[in-house]
């Protein structure tokens, strides 16, 4: 989890669930991650998949990612180039899936309130700071075991290192 994440903000509200992040009807038919990215958020924001750029940051309200355990609700965003998700709070399985896929999920109610769609934002994971024209916001550091998973790019690369 080295370096800086820099991009534009895509802002959404409270309670965004996994069915609008990645619809259930695709869960057993789409296996190509690039194709998953083309359907990211399609029932919430049809403009997202075509316009998202690498490093862009999703900013959301409470309980982001509630609903299904489907990991595609994280994979589709990682493949779309999303650099981080900042929210007031996260649903727990989505949160675990994010960490386990190397996608920083940052709980920061202050940044979630201050940032707006289109804002340029910079996330400094090492320093634990989110910087933008709206201000600087700090977020709580990850537990050491979680930092190790993120540093390796997710649970599977982390395990490969451990088992290899």
């Amino acid at each position, binding site marked *: 989890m080295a370096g800086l994440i820099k991009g534009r903000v895509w802002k959404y509200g409270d*309670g965004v*669930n*996994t*069915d*609008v992040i990645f*619809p*259930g*009807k695709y*869960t*057993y*038919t789409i*296996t190509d991650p690039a194709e998953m990215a083309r359907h990211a958020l399609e*029932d919430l924001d049809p403009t997202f998949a075509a316009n998202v750029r690498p490093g862009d940051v999703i900013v959301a309200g*409470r*309980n982001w990612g*509630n*609903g*299904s*355990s*489907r*990991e595609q609700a*994280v994979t589709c965003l990682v493949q779309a180039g999303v650099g981080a998700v900042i929210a007031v*709070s996260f*649903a*727990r*399985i989505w949160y*675990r*899936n994010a960490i*386990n*896929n190397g996608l920083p999920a940052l709980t920061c109610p202050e940044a979630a309130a201050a940032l707006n769609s289109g804002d340029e934002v910079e996330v400094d994971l090492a320093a634990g700071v989110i910087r933008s024209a709206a201000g600087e916001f700090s977020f709580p550091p990850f*537990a050491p*075991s979680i930092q190790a998973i993120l540093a390796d790019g*997710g*649970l*599977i690369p982390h*395990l*490969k290192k451990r*088992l*290899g």
Partner: protein
Amino acid sequence: MGHTFAEKILARNAGLAEVRPGQIIDATPDVALSHDNSAAIARIFRSLGVARVKHPDRLAITLDHAAPPPTTRHAQNHAEIRRFVAEQGITHFYDVGRGICHQVLSEEGLVYPGAVVLGADSHSTHYGALGAFGAGVGRSEMAAIWATGQLWLRVPESIKITLTGQFRPWVTSKDIALHIIGQLGADGGLYASIEFHGEAVAGMSMESRFVLPNMMAEMGAKNAWVQVDQTTFDWLAQVAGKDEAELARLKAASEAVAPDPDAVYAAEYRFNAAEIEPQIACPHTVDNVRPLSAVAGTKVDQAFLGTCTNGRLEDIAAAAAVIKGRRVAPGVRLVVIPASAEVYLQALRAGYLETLLEAGAVIESPGCGPCMGNHLGIPAPGEVTISTANRNFRGRMGTPEAEIYLASPAVVAASAVAGEIAAPWEIGGQSDGRID
């Protein structure tokens, strides 16, 4: 200072004297569940370079989410899973037609007091009904469990919910679950272990109890637990086939992980079962809950009775009691999907399916059906479905232009007859909703 169920069972599983909320532990699940997502998990598993699953006897795999397969691609997915099951020697494999994972694992005796069950399915909270710790995980995590037998878990804070009083006629565990979610919100139990205590729980059948922890996934819970008593052990003996010696062991295990009277909770709530009427979750969130009387009269195009939440014998019996001698309203589809082959057989023998067929229902093979939009009852844009399922998110059943209302089996059956959301007593139901 005492400990909660989650603290006691996770400490026991991790071989620690005690644990505290927030602590990260390495859990060793007794059962690791996956379903139609097993092919995707197998691909991640293979990428680890590990040849064999660490504990093949602890895996349970069901084919239920799109079963029988509606398309060639779904069929290929199932075929890939069967190859993996054969290659790895996985004995707890339940093929197309056996039923929905949570119901099947419970019937098969794989879930019991004191067990730790992790599932690659968000409704794995279900297993708390039998005194087990059940939590949902992702696909990569399941691949990690297959490879190592373990997974990191954070010990959750606990919330104690006490259900007092007695239910009014026609009011069920589904109604009180929806009421709680409506009151506390979709994040009201975020990351938490939710415990159900109280006289209203004691009075519930085992089938009714399964609804409570199942629905707690919709409140953000990590797991949920229901107090264990003779009803639990009778069910384990009669349905799951546990013998006397096993029951004695399970009683001891149950006592070892039961919450202490002086356990510390992050929050405690009390709800009086006698005070609520049937509840409905309205589009497009499960916490958008209103009393039945506030939404009665809403026109419906489809009624769906089934799922891991409410597809058991008691649910089909309740629907049959409401619908006996009546017809599904013209222009309305009533889709009925028993939660398992066992439920199907018993509903058939009891005559419930005959009653439903005579009324104009469509009976489908056991599985998840249209719940998450795969097949067997997908609505058209603009249509309204009333369903016994646990989730009504926009797009859940296939199209974002459809609306989904969630309710109890009796209300779903009454609505199918009326062609609009209706109370069972208003269409002249022949029973008071109490089946046994």
